[in-house]
């Protein structure tokens, strides 16, 4: 039970990290980005590539995060900027195309075999109560927390964060007030890409890497963002942690292979009862 709680917490932090990127893009760009998952995959594979080039682990991680951010900005500029103003549905369908395309690129460049970072096996930490915590999970958890704190301080304290919040709240008014929507959007996509790159690296620390890692995480991220309220930063983080813990606890009752189904059931239930999310203001979806 305690093991499930702790593992669930780590898993939940990862989900929250990835879902945060999704929810930021939704808040500022007003559509659900289905290609978010493939950026996670790229994060993991970028790190793999840099490790392969001989970078030290920490350098590979930083480089992977930077590349993910750049890729995300490129996706925004090439695919979604021309679609500004066409509506959430067009962008969603285009993002599905982007997802398929990006995952195909991963498959073409890196192949479909299972890969791993090849890190040395380390002792697991033993905490009170017989709970086992793999070392890399601790790294992943800390990374997730740092990432989220970074975003929080950015949104709250910097002028860039303010402009992002302004565009999320009311794009036209923001533009009238002199906020550059263009810059805010580029920044949002870049930050989202960085978060997701970190998420991908953490996934790589957590387990094996295949071109499908992003997709598997995407549905959990959707669920977390929907539970917390799409566009609601703290709600999404809380949603992610809750979801991670709930999914792990569920494995005590049902077979572990059904874990993803848990996320999907959560989506269905939340959308049925409170579609705007647990933490959002009541509004019609």
């Amino acid at each position: 039970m305690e093991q499930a709680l702790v593992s669930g917490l780590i898993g939940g932090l990862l989900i929250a990290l990835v879902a945060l990127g999704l929810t930021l893009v939704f808040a500022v760009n007003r559509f659900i980005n289905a290609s978010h998952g493939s950026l996670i995959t790229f994060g993991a594979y970028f790190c793999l590539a840099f490790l392969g080039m001989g970078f030290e682990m920490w350098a590979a991680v930083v480089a992977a995060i930077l590349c993910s951010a750049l890729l995300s900005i490129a996706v925004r500029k090439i695919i979604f900027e021309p679609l500004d103003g066409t509506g959430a549905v067009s962008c969603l369908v285009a993002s599905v195309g982007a997802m398929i395309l990006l995952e195909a690129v991963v498959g073409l460049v890196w192949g479909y075999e299972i890969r791993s970072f090849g890190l040395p096996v380390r002792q697991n930490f033993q905490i009170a109560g017989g709970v086992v915590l793999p070392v890399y999970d601790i790294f992943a958890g800390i990374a997730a927390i740092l990432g989220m704190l970074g975003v929080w301080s950015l949104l709250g304290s910097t002028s860039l964060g303010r402009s992002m919040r302004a565009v999320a709240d009311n794009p036209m008014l923001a533009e009238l007030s002199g906020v550059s929507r263009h810059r805010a959007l580029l920044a949002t996509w870049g930050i989202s890409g960085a978060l997701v790159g970190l998420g991908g690296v953490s996934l790589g620390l957590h387990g094996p890497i295949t071109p499908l890692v992003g997709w598997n995480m995407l549905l959990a991220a959707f669920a977390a963002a929907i539970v917390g309220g799409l566009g609601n930063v703290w709600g999404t983080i809380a949603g992610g942690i809750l979801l991670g813990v709930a999914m792990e606890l569920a494995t005590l009752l049902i077979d572990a292979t059904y874990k993803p189904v848990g996320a999907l059931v959560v989506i269905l239930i939340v959308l049925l009862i409170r579609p705007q999310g647990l933490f959002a203001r009541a509004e019609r979806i």
Partner: protein
Amino acid sequence: MSTYLASLGTTALLYCLLALGLNLQWGHAGLLNFGHIAFFGIGAYAFALGGQFGMPLIAALLLGSFAAATISLVLGFASLRLRTDYLAVVTLAFAEAFRIILSNVPWFGGPNGITGVPRLFGEFDAQTFSWLWLALLSFTTLAIAGPMLVLVRSPFGRVLRAIRDDEVAVAGLGRSVFRFETLTLVIGSAIAGLAGGLYASWVGYIVPSQFVPMQTFYVWIGIILGGSSIGGALLGTFAITALLEGTRFLKDVGVIVLAADQVASVRLLVVGAMLILLVRFKPAGLRPFDELRSARNWLRNQPGATVANGATSDRPRASVKAVQ
């Protein structure tokens, strides 16, 4: 070779059946259903299980269609009141949940699926078998497209298009948007279920990995390509499927130098790129029939034309708004 072509045609027609349902849901009612393939799968599994219990083939096919329709009713009740993009997420989630459950529950055969599905025309040799199936599917597609055409031009179809364009107005005029949308979902899913049963019978075995969301997106491209008319959707889906499935064997013919799974990746690349380009440049589809109509009008309206010789003043009317 002719067996191969007949098989290709049969596959394309199966996708066309899926397109008929999806076209009704999206092109006419504006429902973004990313989980359509799940109902194809439900139909296939229901047929296979029915066959295992010794049901006559026709009854098993109907069972497949009925099972798909019933489950879509449940999904519809849970999700149709949501706005378009949330509906897409929910239907996608549903399709994935369905596939995961199928892959793991032993009753459905687990990851290895069900083998030994009874095959209609199974007693014939390979060539006759493939041509018989092509004939059956052609007949089925026409038999469903016909009534669909009538349905779409009926008051029901008009209400659907009104819902697509402005739900609030329809509700204000006293029609239950939810009921019409649910009916559309059920009709589309019933057709998909029938197609699933036919597919199971044709191939003889079913595996959960055949029912992935990617299949739905193939059909999507077909529909977007062809525009929202029924003929357009059928043409578009047929063309895209023939293209995608036909290129599976390019390696055997020695044209391509890539490895097999790289060819699969390239195919996915093309699919993704097409979706993006279509949404960007041709959201209402290539609309082949509209192009013909405008060409005809252009010819009629040349200098020197008078109403007496057939000049017209109408321009081709958009039958579907650009994707909103």
